[in-house]
């Protein structure tokens, strides 16, 4: 008997639904991206995102079911992201998921968005099983998580200020690349020299696996200002490459050190920033030097999507986790902490 999950995700600016079987097989993965709308504003506008979610939520659910060729009878449970994220955005997915689960008499399973990102790694790596260390880096989150088993997580390190993706966006804006910054910096950096400018790498003395990007961001802005004052021409590709390398070094170093300290043999990457080619290459190289197996999802599973929520939802479901009709959106939901 296989277990089929309908999953819904609306925590930020993607309205998404998916059908996932047995926590590994993605039957459909529908994503309506609002990115074009938010580009006008240089970042995600919560009210606009929430409005768009209401418009699209039924379409993505319907498309997920149709594309997967399943019927309601095949679906065992409904999983939904209930935090963290933008509260107005989360509420749309949570409300719709609860209504659907209720009307179809299916169990409801709330999923932590970050646990979803981590679970994205299971989709394409049938051999990957916990325990492992996972670096989750995206526009809104940067966490180093020890995945003890499928539903037990421990935060090992976190950013003290900006998320990694946020730093990419801010630097991209400063050098005139626009939003979203991650992919644009990644592309431009390929033409630059990553050793051209030395930007600081912040490491925390009191918490060995925490990191910080606001100092790095300021250093980049100071460098740009300094060049302007001195009427020096700015090599944007060099700035992009040098900045990116600083982020990559910090994420890689922390991840690998934590993996070794926790006795992990496997290291994974997740979240939107996991699409960054330089981060992948660098982590791959350092991980194999250190004898660690390294995993990361395809870009389509790095971005916010519902398939990953279906995978995490499957593991919650199998662990007996159920949520009630009063499930609420929790914008600052902590990893590994259920209500």
């Amino acid at each position, binding site marked *: 008997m296989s277990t089929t999950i309908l999953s819904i995700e609306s925590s930020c600016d993607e309205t998404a639904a998916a059908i996932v079987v047995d926590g590994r097989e993605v039957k459909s993965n529908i994503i309506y991206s609002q990115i074009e709308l938010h580009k*006008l*504003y240089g970042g995600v*506008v919560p*009210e*606009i995102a*929430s*409005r768009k*979610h*209401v*418009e699209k*939520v*039924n*379409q993505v*659910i*319907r498309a997920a079911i149709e594309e997967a060729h399943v019927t*309601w009878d095949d679906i065992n449970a409904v999983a939904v992201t209930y935090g963290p994220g933008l*509260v*107005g955005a989360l*509420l*749309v*997915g*949570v*409300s*719709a*998921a*609860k*209504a*659907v689960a*209720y*009307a*179809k008499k299916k169990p409801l399973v709330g999923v932590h968005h970050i646990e979803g990102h981590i679970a994205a790694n299971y989709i394409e790596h049938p051999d990957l099983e916990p325990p492992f260390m996972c670096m989750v880096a995206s526009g809104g989150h940067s966490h180093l998580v020890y995945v003890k088993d499928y539903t037990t997580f421990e935060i090992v390190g976190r950013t003290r200020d900006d998320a990694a993706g946020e730093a990419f966006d801010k630097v991209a804006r400063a050098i005139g690349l626009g939003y979203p910054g991650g992919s644009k910096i990644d592309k431009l950096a390929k033409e630059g020299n990553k050793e051209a400018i030395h930007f600081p790498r912040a490491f925390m003395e009191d918490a060995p696996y925490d990191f910080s990007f606001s100092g790095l961001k300021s250093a980049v802005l100071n460098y740009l200002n300094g060049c302007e004052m001195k009427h020096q021409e700015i090599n944007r590709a060099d700035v992009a490459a040098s900045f990116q390398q600083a982020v990559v070094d910090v994420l890689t170093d922390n991840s690998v050190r934590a993996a070794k300290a926790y006795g992990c043999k496997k290291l994974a990457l997740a979240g939107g920033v996991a699409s960054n080619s330089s981060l992948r290459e660098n982590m791959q190289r350092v991980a194999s030097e250190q004898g660690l197996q390294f995993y990361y999802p395809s870009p389509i599973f790095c971005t916010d999507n519902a398939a990953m929520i279906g995978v995490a939802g499957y593991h919650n479901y199998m662990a007996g986790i159920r949520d*009630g*009709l*009063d*499930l*609420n*959106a929790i914008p600052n939901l902590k990893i590994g902490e259920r209500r």
Partner: protein
Amino acid sequence: MRILGVDSSGMVASVALVEDDLLVAEYSVNYKKTHSQTLLPMLDEIVKMTELDLNTIDAIAVAAGPGSFTGLRIGAATVKGLGLALEKPVISVPTCHGLAYNLWGNDKLICPIMDARRSQVYTGIYEFAKDGMQVFLDQSAMDIRALAEKLNAMGREVIFLGDGCPVYASVLAECMQVPYAFAPAHLNRQRASAVASLGAEYFKQGKQEPADDLIPIYLRKSQAEREREEKLAAEGQA
């Protein structure tokens, strides 16, 4: 005909089941809990209490707006999810129309006022005539003093209702020149029974829509959109 009504446009969460000319059940809560925590448990209570098979309803009526943006979305997303799963259409009921319907048959002007902040109200002006509810002023966001002026010009007695009443009582006391009164507790806030009853009228007129198409009536753009438009307009003039 069975119509389920839902209103989460304001502070009140309200769910009702109306069957032809009978209100089978209504559950309203005016309490600080978020609608996300109350709405479906309330529906479930009604379903259990009245042994309702949700598959037997004809349509779901919802107070579509104006109102609290978040409240509207919780209502809309819930109703859309129900409509999708039950394969039932939805009926979009303008919130102020629904509020006015609380006072069906009254011979005064009916004026719902919902606090829209920045000294504005979401409002409309209604009266009941032989052929049902007439709309004098369609629902819109308006300055409370401008509304008082409009009502004074109409020269008829007015009944106010809605959560704007306590907020603007002193402004109205100062500005209103025609006789007016505030509706009492059992009628002065959103009620899903009124949404369902008015929704039933719309349903008879074929004004239901597929659940997928339902969009809340915000009456206001997001702040980011307003600011961007103002900026573009200013640049256009420069």
